């Protein structure tokens, strides 16, 4: 009981879908009209939906817990209820400890004030007092890397600078319970890395973190346990890896609407010697099985394989043709299977597998599956960054200066 930091018990939240009366001009006729036609007002009540249904979970002190789910699954609603911005329609929430929510960290900024003034403003909004902010001011400014512009009104900032300042303030609040929503999607790569480090250090300091993100990489790096939400209901609560796998499996669409294609990709599977999987260590070897099936007679075929990162940037591409396999032909009803072996030496991240079958001599793609699968790379402690260069330490020696040697001798 005492070690519970956050708890939700059978929480329900109902929203109204349609436009409610938001002006007196509409309300007055509706009310007077309603006296004669009761059902008119009742009709409004039916247009509602449940954003959350029977959500229960528990987070222990010092634990990092992730919530993942598609847009509209109810993630933000949970955060808003926990941070008391909204009241649940039904159910109970318990929060033990000073709670701080990083939900849109630059929400409190005022355009016309300078960076420094906004640090004080936002810091106060996030629950710090003036003395606390003053003592951390230098840290906050240097974390944001905005020393030069700190006395410039923030309306002149770029959006990245804006967000950086926001996160810097928020990261220096010392909360016991921290709620984080999508703040890490700001700034450049380096800044994101530092944000993650800061979050881990907050965690190490004994705080409880509830983390909501689309960024599976970040969730799996920070959180030990996670919850998958589906349309306002809890789908699974478990260790982060299995929840992430669950989520990724969900994201793969079944092949449909391929009936009229002369040849189609009937199956794509990612595996290693242990069997089918989606999470790999950086540098591991993966097998990608692609099965294609023909409906008509097709000639000079090739299979193309691409890997793209979260920003849809293509990081790798190969095909049967470049791998030396000549163009092949298929008869109706015939299937063909390829196994590609890839050494996944990307750095940690989420990668989408894109598979195409077509005739590449005439630039005709018969069928494309994107994403055919999602591959999730976990970093090893030795590897940071976008690629794995397989680092090895081959020499480490002390070099003594000869003059220094003489003086010492």
């Amino acid at each position, binding site marked *: 009981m005492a070690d519970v930091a956050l708890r939700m018990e059978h929480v329900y939240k109902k*929203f109204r879908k349609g436009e*409610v*009366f*938001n*002006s*007196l*001009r509409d*309300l007055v006729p509706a009310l007077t009209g309603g006296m004669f036609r009761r059902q008119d007002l009742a009709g409004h009540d039916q247009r509602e939906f449940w954003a959350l249904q029977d959500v229960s979970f528990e987070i222990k002190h010092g634990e990092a817990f992730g919530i993942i789910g598609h847009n509209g699954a109810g993630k933000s609603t949970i955060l*808003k209820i926990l*941070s*008391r*911005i*909204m*009241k649940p329609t039904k159910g109970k929430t318990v929060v033990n400890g000073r709670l701080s*929510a990083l*939900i*849109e960290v630059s*929400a*409190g900024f*005022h355009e*016309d*004030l300078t960076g420094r*003034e906004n640090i*004080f*403003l936002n810091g*106060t*909004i*996030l629950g710090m*007092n*003036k003395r606390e902010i003053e003592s951390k001011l230098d840290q906050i400014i240097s974390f944001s890397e905005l020393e030069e512009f700190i006395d410039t009104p923030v309306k002149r900032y770029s959006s990245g600078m804006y967000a950086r300042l926001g996160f810097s303030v928020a990261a220096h609040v010392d909360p016991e319970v921290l709620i984080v929503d999508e703040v890490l999607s700001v700034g450049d790569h380096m800044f994101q890395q530092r944000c993650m480090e800061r979050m881990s250090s907050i965690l190490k300091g004994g705080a409880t973190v509830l983390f909501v993100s689309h960024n599976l990489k970040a969730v799996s790096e920070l959180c030990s346990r996670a919850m998958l939400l589906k349309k306002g209901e809890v789908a699974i609560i478990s260790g982060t890896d299995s929840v992430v796998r669950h989520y990724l499996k969900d994201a793969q669409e079944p092949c449909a609407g391929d009936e009229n294609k002369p040849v189609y990709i009937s199956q794509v599977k990612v595996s290693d010697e242990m069997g089918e999987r989606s999470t790999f260590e950086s540098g591991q070897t993966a097998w990608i099985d692609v099965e294609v099936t023909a409906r008509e007679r097709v000639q000079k075929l090739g299979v193309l394989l691409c890997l793209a990162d979260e920003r849809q940037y293509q990081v790798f591409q190969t095909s049967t043709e470049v791998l030396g396999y000549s163009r092949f032909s298929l008869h109706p009803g015939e299937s063909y299977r390829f196994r590609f072996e890839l050494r996944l030496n990307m750095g940690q991240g989420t990668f989408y597998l894109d598979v195409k079958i077509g005739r590449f001599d005439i630039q005709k793609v018969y069928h494309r599956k994107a994403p055919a699968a999602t591959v999730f790379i976990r970093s090893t402690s030795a590897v940071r960054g976008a690629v794995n260069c397989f680092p090895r330490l081959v020499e480490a020696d002390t070099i003594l200066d000869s003059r220094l040697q003489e003086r010492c001798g």
Partner: protein
Amino acid sequence: MRQRGQMREYLREFNKYRGLFWMITYRDIKVRYKQSVMGFLWAILMPVLIVMSGIVVRYAYAFTAHVAINKADVASVAVKALPWAFLVSSIRFSCNSLMSNKQLVTKIYFPKEIFPLAAVMASLFDLFVASGALLIFLFAIRVGWSVLLLWVPLLLATIVVFACGIGMIVSAAGLFFRDVKYIVEVLLTFGIFFTPVFYDTRMVGDKAKWLLLNPVAPLLEGLSSCVTRQPLPDPLWIAYSLAFSTVALVGGYLFFKHLEPAFAESI
């Protein structure tokens, strides 16, 4: 009894966030003075305009009554114009305060009455700035002092209490009904005709009591008496204003707090 316990809870919560309250007030003041090139003149502009129109009106009265306009009339208009300007600006400003802080209302938890109250405080700051100018003006036209000045803090405080109450009501109502803003605007524009700013209630003879029903009227009359050395309005009327303002404050606060949980979803 339950309500009293709840009230205490609200106040404790507000007290916890008082640092934020002052911070938002400071922000509102700072932003206002930063945005306008005129700086502090901003606080004086509106009262000056009101005083000037008041002098024109007063001149017209004097002309039709075939008497000369005297400095007591001018002083009276000037003294009443400032609190009226404060009232108008604080109600207007607090009416929009929740909407213009939408981001904060929907994203971060804290007692939301901070916004309308900070708006009133920022307007109060303007009032103090303008009062400085008024004192110089009154000194220049040589209006004497009197012991009646001791009433000023009480009268001003009552106006502030009234502004806070109305501010909370209109800000909460304005969040749910977008046209409240326009209604408030119209009321504020024409309110000056129903409030003794340009005139005194005694000018309408025994109908004065109808005008004094406007809770702002006895307060403004009282303030003007302090400089023109007219007798104060009946203390009963001032007590009436005080009671009215207190009810507005407490009622407005409860109204605001009652609606507050629905703010984030309705905005």
